[in-house]
């Protein structure tokens, strides 16, 4: 067990995970933040994507102990007032979900990417989301949603 302190969605959290525990499992099991979904558990599907210190990362490919002293944002942290964030609302409006299992990963990847690339076009967005898998194959509506979010953000 290793004692760690980190910031998750703006709140300071402490824990004592085993070294082998991934950040994904720590968020879900120890902090009860089950919005981060665990799909393949070896870095292929992108469902567990969260934002660590401003960058999208796969939380199944990072140990919880490695997140010590980091700033982590999960899907629960995007809309602290209980509403929806820009990307979430745009994806809702674009029917970007079918079963919804992959959705948190897509949303986190899109949020991280758009904050760095506010002027991104369709091709760049497709590339940025290429590491996330949707087994319902609803990709087109997901791209539509992220494009809509980018457009709305630019208008603000």
């Amino acid at each position, binding site marked *: 067990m*290793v004692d760690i302190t980190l910031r998750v969605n703006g709140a300071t959290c402490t824990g004592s995970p*085993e*070294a*082998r*525990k*991934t950040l994904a*499992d720590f968020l879900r099991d120890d902090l009860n933040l089950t919005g981060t979904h665990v799909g393949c*558990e*070896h*870095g*292929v599907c*992108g469902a567990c*994507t969260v934002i*660590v210190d401003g*960058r*999208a*990362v*796969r939380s*199944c*490919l*990072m*140990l919880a*102990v*490695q997140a010590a002293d980091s700033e982590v944002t999960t899907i629960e942290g995007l809309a602290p007032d209980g509403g929806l964030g820009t990307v979430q609302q745009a994806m809702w409006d674009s029917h970007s979900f079918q079963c919804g299992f992959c959705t948190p990963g897509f949303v986190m*990847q899109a949020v*991280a*990417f758009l904050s760095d690339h506010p002027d991104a076009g369709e091709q760049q967005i*497709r*590339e*940025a989301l*290429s*590491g996330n898998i949707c087994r319902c194959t609803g990709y087109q509506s997901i791209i539509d949603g992220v494009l809509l979010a980018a457009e709305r953000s630019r208008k603000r």
Partner: protein
Amino acid sequence: MKLPYVEYEAPTTVAEAIDLLAEHLDQASVLAGGQSLIPLLALRLARPAVLIDINGIDELSGVSATDGWVAIGAMTREYVAEKSESVADTVPLLAAALPLIGHEAIRSRGTIGGSLAHADPAAELPAVARALDAEFVVRGQSGERVVPAAQWFEGYLTTSRRPDELLLEVRFPTARRGTGISFQEVARRHGDFAIVGLAASLVFSGGVISDARLAFAGISDMPVRAAAAEDLLVGERPSTELFDEAARRATGDVDPPADLHGSSDYRNTVAAVMVRRGLRAAADNARERQ
């Protein structure tokens, strides 16, 4: 699957890391970005007793340019190198390959040293290192040594790093005037491992090719240079006929592995296409960079 039980050490200096490696030798795995090692643990393909996590060693990160070389610390994240103006200006072949590694989120954590120490034969960075004759600086308790890329890669996921050594940095030669580069690859999706990849670098002086470097990813158990094609190109002026002949020579004696993404024959055909495209693009790039 969940990761198996493993001991964990997090040194904060190179000296501490080397002491730990000397203690645990091949029972230890060095954890850098973890984008390959953690899947290997999850799939039980690697079963180290101890993880030596080098993420806390600040001295291993950074890009520095010295006379004729750019040294990249082993723990430098791929996205950092991708954004580095120094890398873009001085090692354009590396800059061209970096955006093709994995996906956005992989490059957030993945490191230059980690990819090159993991030595996946289908990965981009090993082909770049082999093409440019990069140098690998490793240190163990018995001292430091510099290993040229030609001796670094020894086989599938195997390098000449000894179990007691830590990779400190990788040095890439800066591109000379007249250089044109291209990194080509065919993959099922953007970000997937290359079915075949090619790192190509040409140097022109007075319209004639004075230096040619071609290194393949994905056609052998390690990155391989196309020496016969390189020899053909040097001293010639670029032409379609020349590049066609280079493609024939580059692929004449290779026997690529087959898997569900492509048969050996298919890979061979793609490799020839990569050579033709790569040489054309490198020649165009040399003109653009002037």
